[in-house]
């Protein structure tokens, strides 16, 4: 899956991200929302809350409860997926929730819930990372106070080469895949999974590669947030002028 020029199936160099498009505030009902396209992966995230929690006895007296659902549309994958949540979706919902939790000041909203909904509209690898990235944007869009953004990106090993941001075929046929989420200002990793086979030395390099990817994603997140505020500002100004 790496050609003689060292390029990947989609023409990328090993340490190159796929083309990424992010947009913030795409849904009118949600308190915050974001859309991300990373290569052919297309993921939507929405945040509702902080809001009253039902049933009430689940509420915590000293902080908000964070809930997260990662879900794939039936048409997002090669073979139609049943809409009932799979074991994989249940695990990823947990992993993503735990990736976002350290970034949020949950203690500011006791007795409430903050609900994150991630819908994978099209899956081509890296959807848990794209979902985490989009969810962090949606949280920011909802105005929820955060210690840092969370930027996520995978790295791994394909045909003996360490590569960044694996697509579906690289993930499935490659030797290792390692999704990572990073909070650059805090210097902390909040999501880390790996499967495959790596020596300790390789692991170190792959981790660094993933962190580099996260940092690039982080920049794109900031731009996407800025773009929204510019858009709002323009809207307001147009409004005032008219």
């Amino acid at each position: 899956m790496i050609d003689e020029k060292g390029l990947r199936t989609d023409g990328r160099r090993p340490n190159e991200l796929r083309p990424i498009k992010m947009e913030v505030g795409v849904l009118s009902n949600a308190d915050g929302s974001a859309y991300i396209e990373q290569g052919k992966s297309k993921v939507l995230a929405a945040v509702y809350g902080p809001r009253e929690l039902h049933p009430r006895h689940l509420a915590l007296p000293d902080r908000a409860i964070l809930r997260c659902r990662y879900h794939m549309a039936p048409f997002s994958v090669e073979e139609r997926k049943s809409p009932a949540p799979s074991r994989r979706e249940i695990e990823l919902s947990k992993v993503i929730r735990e990736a976002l939790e350290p970034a949020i000041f949950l203690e500011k909203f006791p007795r409430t819930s903050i609900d994150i909904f991630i819908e994978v509209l099209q899956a081509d690898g890296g959807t848990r990372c794209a979902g985490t990235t989009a969810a962090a944007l949606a949280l920011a869009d909802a105005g929820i106070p955060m210690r840092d953004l969370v930027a996520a990106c995978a790295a791994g090993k394909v045909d003996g080469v360490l590569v960044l941001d694996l697509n579906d075929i690289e993930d499935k046929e490659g030797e290792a895949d390692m999704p990572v989420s990073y909070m650059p200002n805090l210097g902390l990793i909040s999501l880390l999974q790996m499967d495959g086979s790596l020596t300790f030395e390789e692991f170190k390099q792959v981790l660094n590669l993933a962190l580099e990817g996260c940092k690039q994603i982080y920049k794109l997140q900031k731009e996407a947030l800025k773009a929204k505020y510019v858009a709002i500002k323009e809207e307001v100004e147009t409004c005032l002028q008219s």
Partner: protein
Amino acid sequence: MSSIMTSKIRQRQIYQVISSGKRLDGRGLTDYRPIKIEKGIIERAEGSARVLLGKTEVIAGVKVEVGEPFPDRPNEGTFTVNSELVPLASPEFEPGPPNEDAIELARVVDRGIRESQAIDLEKLCLVPGKKVYVIFIDIYTLNHDGNLIDASALAALAALMNTKIPIYTVENGEIRKTSEYMPLPIRNYPIAVTFANIGDKMIVDPWLEEEEVMSTRLTVTVDKDDKISAIQKGGGGALAPQQILEAVCIAKEKARELRRLVVDSLG
């Protein structure tokens, strides 16, 4: 923001304006909101479309598999319509299996397609009694701002018109996938037109706040020959026969208007 339930005052306002023949967003009683249809947005699906109806946003995706026909229709492909009211679309939607609203929505869209014979199912048979094309139409509501039925029916139709199915060769009852594709055989274009009854008025394409005020909902699905394929009354109110007849008349006109949009969008 988390609660989008309209206040009592707002509700009264909506009611009064409609009583006087107008609507709060400036539309006439039988006007649709702006409609935008995008096709082929999910490349991995055999067909797909996104519909924006005002702020209501719906995606439909079509997946095609090979499976067995129903025993009483051995020479026909099959299709199912499924609808999910995913929780990112509204604070009122909850995760879990489809509730009665999602099921009704899917079944109304299904009946429009089925009764107008929009898909030529006989062309979807590979080996009679054994292997046929199985079409899954999944409708995903992304933002709920009212009138999900019409948006969903539009998205489903646009996605079907956008669908390419893999061609199989059949030899001795064994099928083999080729690398070729053909368009899904579509032979009718059913359009759902939904009315809300508010006071004594029947309005078209209610948005969310109007839905909260309406007493009754009426959906009329009309096919390309101006025939009625399906009707569904919803909501806990009731209608006079005359109101229904008038709505059916209007539906015919509106359906033509919308059908043109879908066909155009797929040029």
